[in-house]
């Protein structure tokens, strides 16, 4: 792995706040999120439902407005008001893969339209024949047959539908893809197929992923770096292996203890760690974003930092 200095930053999130509702009904879904995503890597965002992980993904796609902070893509600010030209560029370069392949495809449209729709917007110069050729190629790229273009979504299995969703994202040749729980709704054997496909596409085209999931075991396999988010705050960020082998924050430790392993004897002996946010006493000292180990950041107070590091060394 190369050092951080040599890597090109693709996306930077600075002090990001996202609020739902206004006035008394305002709810802070994301608070003070900071991270960078390097070009060509897979950045994992892990958290339970309601933690704000999808909210961040949607803010990057500009589906949701932000209430504070900045999102920089290739050094340019992309939240808030942006120029038309930039909007066009971002639509082409940032794409999304959705969680549920059953509800993310238009049931009344043929696959050719679903996959090719983005081209009408991004590449209006293409003739219908050229567009058709692109759809054909996109379907081949994700391991589907070009003949499928004339069929409807209901004719496909869950894994095939997810591939259609991936083809739709790929056809505009994006540089950055936000994958929001792309395998959670799939069967075990199909998960492996989709993960392999995403990895191959990254290798061939240098696509950068923001991979959102609730399952650390999948993250460990697919991600280069992982950020753990809980109740709208990012608690810990490190390289994938570092995070899994040397977790510092109690929440990360509880997530790791919950991973189901296909190993009955170890499973029978395992103790579940339950995370209780009340253990933090931040009345005296507000928590800060600290680097406690190499390339490993944690949100904690000074006393916690010492305590957690100590605990980690002993285990």
């Amino acid at each position, binding site marked *: 792995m190369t050092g951080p200095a040599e890597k090109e930053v693709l996306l930077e999130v600075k002090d990001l706040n996202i609020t739902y509702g206004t006035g008394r009904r305002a709810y802070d879904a994301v608070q003070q999120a900071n991270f960078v995503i390097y070009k060509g890597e897979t950045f994992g965002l892990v958290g339970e439902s309601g933690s704000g992980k999808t909210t961040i993904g949607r803010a990057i796609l500009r589906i949701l407005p932000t209430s504070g902070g900045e999102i920089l893509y290739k050094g340019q600010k992309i939240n808030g008001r942006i120029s038309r030209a930039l909007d066009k560029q971002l639509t082409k370069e940032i794409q999304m893969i959705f969680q549920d392949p059953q509800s993310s495809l238009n049931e009344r449209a043929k696959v050719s339209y679903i996959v090719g729709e983005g081209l009408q917007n991004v590449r209006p110069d293409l003739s219908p024949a050229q567009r058709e050729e692109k759809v054909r190629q996109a379907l081949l790229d994700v391991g589907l047959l070009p003949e499928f273009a004339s069929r409807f979504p209901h004719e496909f299995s869950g894994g095939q539908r997810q591939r259609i969703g991936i083809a739709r994202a790929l056809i505009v040749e994006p540089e950055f893809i936000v994958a929001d729980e792309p395998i959670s709704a799939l069967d075990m054997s199909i998960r492996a197929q989709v993960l*392999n496909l995403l*990895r191959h596409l990254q290798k061939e085209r240098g696509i950068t992923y923001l991979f959102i999931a609730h399952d650390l*075991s999948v993250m460990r396999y697919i991600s280069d770096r992982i950020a753990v988010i809980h109740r709208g705050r990012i608690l810990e960020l490190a390289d994938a292996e570092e995070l899994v082998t040397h977790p510092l924050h109690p929440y990360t430790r509880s997530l790791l203890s*919950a991973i189901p*392993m296909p190993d009955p004897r170890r499973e029978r002996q395992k103790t579940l760690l339950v995370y209780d946010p009340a253990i933090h006493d931040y009345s005296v000292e507000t928590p800060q974003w600290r680097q406690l180990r190499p390339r490993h950041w944690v949100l904690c107070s000074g006393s916690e930092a010492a305590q957690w590091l100590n605990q980690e060394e002993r285990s």
Partner: protein
Amino acid sequence: MEQNDRILSVQDLHVKFDLRGRVLHAIRGVDLELYRGEVLAIVGESGSGKSVFTKSFMGLLDANGSITGGTMDYYPTPGGEPVRLSCLKGEKDWLRIRGREIAMVMQDPMTSLNPLKTIGEQIMEAVCLHQGLKGAAAREKTLEYLRDVGIRDPEQRFRQYPHEFSGGMRQRVVIAIALACSPRILICDEPTTALDVTIQAQILQLLKEMRQKYHLTIVMITHDLGVVANIADRVAVMYAGDIVEIGTADEIYYDPRHPYTWALLSSMPQMGVKGQDLFNILGTPPNLFAEIRGDAFAPRNPQALKIDFVKRPPYFSVTPTHKAKTWLLDPRAPQVEPPAAVKLLRKEASVHDRTR
């Protein structure tokens, strides 16, 4: 395990569905003995028939489906007279079994609760119907169940509606309703699939506690072999409407014999090595409308033997508790090495042995 210990005995069960004149053979001759007090996990991908199989225990097959062969006997008491479930016809007969003897927890707690009734009413309904309690006694019992499944402030929660509960809490309520029927067998159909990993682990923990307290026999249905390693005493692997391998949890995870079990274990992301492809099962499950010749998994198994395409394998016993339907176990079969991930698990088992 002795004959007397069994609570459910299924022999050569066939279930068929009639879909606009075409016949779908969903369960193709399944044998299963379920023993009192055990946790049996049934693992398989979608369409393998695992849900249909367990629904047939409760007479919950859709109207176009029916049991076309085989027997299913339920033993309410050890060594007592069995009830032949496969012969029950009317709703009236089934109502004596459903809930009272065999209860079910469904996958999605969002859709299995009534949004218009309070949690308390929904649990109390089962308490009144199945335990014959009324009024204050029923209410007291309901509160006890709420406490059992780990819901704090039961008095207050009693009056709340499902939308005021989180997903994990809702699943706890669904489990409380199932327990309130005081069943002997609890069938859990993917009870944790819709939940977060941490909540999933807590629900499994809860099921283990409830099994102890209420002496339940539990059948867990899942597509994820990782989830049930924690809770299962025995594991049955289902493929294309048949149990292709069954054994104790240790046998299935550390010494699997069927190529399909190998494939399922190796395709788990937990077993993946970073930067390398995950093992993936080629092709799709077979079409159950058509007659299947030979081993149903053969077309997706690159190492299939010739006989796999011709003759359906019978069960071969590995140990008295472990058997698999694969020709690889025939003495005449060539030696086929299991994939690397399976060997890795086997190695871990021997590490556990040494540390003991």
